């Protein structure tokens, strides 16, 4: 008979990620308010919204970065309350974030960070990943120093994949990126999904959504609240055509 621990049992029946009435503050100001969201393994959730709606803040809060603080609600990962865990502990549990603006770090080579991560997470196909995302050529360069937009996004996604994450969050992977990079990024997201990784994709323009074969849900985030959630076929064409404000009116009136 196989004996499971309570945590393992909970992990099996609980959602991968659950945000319960989450509020996130930056310097006392509430950026995200009472937000609830459930992501299951292998699902792709797209969060869209205008600039300043709180998309990046939300991902930072789930990752546990120091800047935004959680000022209400809870975050559960595989049933475990991680609301107060530091980011590196969350990373170890399998949460990952491809940053929108990763910092340029002089003197630190991509190879050094990648090798340290391979040592941490073990990675059987990292050479393949590096090839797939065309990052081999940057291995001996200082991390993100002088990288183009597309190079930064590909490198971030490469590092994220080295974590072999259970939950992958991608912050605007399609902004400021050439067409070739978007194809590569989309293919990597498909790879993540095929490994049963849950994906939260934040996008302002929605370009990358056209390249993905299956998206489970699209959420509209406006002023820190999810104001609409629906299937991609329902939501994406409306938003692409009308923009956020008008699009929301169209979507809600359809439902009414």
């Amino acid at each position, binding site marked *: 008979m196989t004996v499971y621990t309570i945590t393992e049992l909970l992990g099996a029946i609980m959602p991968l990620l659950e945000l319960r009435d989450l509020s996130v503050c930056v310097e006392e100001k509430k950026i995200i308010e009472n937000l609830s969201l459930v992501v299951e393994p292998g699902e792709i959730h797209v969060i869209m919204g205008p600039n300043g709606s709180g998309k990046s803040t939300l991902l930072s809060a789930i*990752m*546990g*970065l*120091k*800047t935004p603080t959680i000022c209400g609600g809870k975050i559960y990962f595989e049933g475990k309350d991680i609301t107060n865990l*530091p*980011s*590196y502990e969350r*990373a*170890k549990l399998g949460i*990952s*974030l491809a*940053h929108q603006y*990763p*910092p340029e*770090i*002089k*003197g*630190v*080579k991509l190879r*050094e*960070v990648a090798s*340290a*991560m391979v040592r*941490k*997470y073990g990675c059987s196909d990292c050479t393949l990943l590096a090839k797939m995302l065309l990052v081999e050529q940057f291995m001996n360069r*200082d991390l993100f120093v002088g990288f183009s937009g597309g190079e930064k996004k590909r490198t971030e996604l490469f*590092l994220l994949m080295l*974590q072999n994450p259970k939950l992958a969050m991608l912050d605007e992977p399609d902004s400021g990126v050439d067409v070739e990079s978007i194809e590569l990024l989309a293919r990597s997201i498909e790879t993540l999904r095929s490994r049963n990784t849950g994906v939260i994709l934040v996008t302002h323009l929605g370009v990358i959504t056209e390249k993905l074969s299956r998206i489970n849900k699209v959420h509209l985030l406006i002023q820190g609240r999810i104001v609409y959630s629906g299937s991609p076929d329902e939501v994406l064409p409306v938003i692409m055509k009308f923009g956020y404000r008008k699009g929301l009116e169209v979507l809600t009136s359809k439902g009414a």
Partner: protein
Amino acid sequence: MNISEVEKALIKPALYGPDIDLSKYKLEEAVVEEARDVDPGVASAAPRVGLEPGKLMYVQSNERALYTAMARALSKYGVIVAPTREGLEKKPLAKELAWRLVNPASDKYTASAYLYGGEVGYFIYVPPYTKVPMPVYTCLAITTNNTVQFAHNIVYVDEGAEVNLVTGCAIPHGIKDGVHVGISEFYVARNAKLTFTMIHAWAEGLHVRPRTAVRVEEGGEYVSYYVTYSPVASIQTYPTVYLKKNAKAYLASIIASSKKGVYDIGARSILEEPGASTENISRVVAKDESSVYARAEIEAIESDTKGHIECLGLLLSPRAVVSSIPIITSRKQGAVLSHEAAIGLIAQKEIDYLMSKGFSEDEAKAVLIRGFMNIDAPIPPSIKKQVDQILDIVTKYAVG
């Protein structure tokens, strides 16, 4: 040499650094002898500066200068590695070069070395167009307490020749105090190249006063890569490099300071003829209550010369102090000189970023400090590997 002038200088303090009363320390008699076995003190000090005792070509323990069998391995290339006293007795060139670049009357340390040092230290000669196939490893150690050690090093790299010199200066565990005074006079002839890697590992009660001057002739190249990482009572040094036509210098210092140490470390380049160029780079990582003065100076005497200073410092403790003091002086139009200096903390956003990748806060700091000390110095890969190992130790030391 005007002896009375040198004698007068015995009480002359140095321009920088705390003044040391040398009379408080004992001085052993200088001796030169064959090394039968590696001196146990040196054997335990050498690994602290990344050196293997078996590979050393010159060894000095206090005032005992030791020949090693390894030095003879180079004699087939015509390369001489010998105690300076031996060189002065047997080689007219050594005599001609001694005390030409460093004036014994500069301060009490040079004067004492000249008058009482007994001319121990190393003399190295590389014949014309000889590329020495292996690095020349030397190690100077202070192996008893309360001792003053003098060393007078003379290096001549003849026309078109190339050599990589690695010198480690250290003390074995258990040595608490002492003074090290090292006089180094390096000559790089036309189109020759000398890379000089020096690693220092001292202890809280040690005072260190290196006095170095280098002359680089037309088309020659001098690379200095200096690393110091242990606590020390004080280090004060300000090497000067004189560069002739089209000569190049790259002077890098990595300083990881700690405890209550005073680290006054500089690099000065004099661009004497057209085409001369220099880069003076320093990286300072300061913790505890240490004080660091990172000095750098470039003086352009001729036009069509180029020089750049880059001093970067990281403060790892609220009580440490770092002063960056760059000076650029141009005496002719057409010299291009610049400097860049910055002192800061480790960037929080960089720590946050690495933590989001699964690095703990300490691990993230270590990665960033290690990266901060990474410089692309033009040294051979084998030595770079050695220095990298030392920098890994330095990082642990700086974070811990």
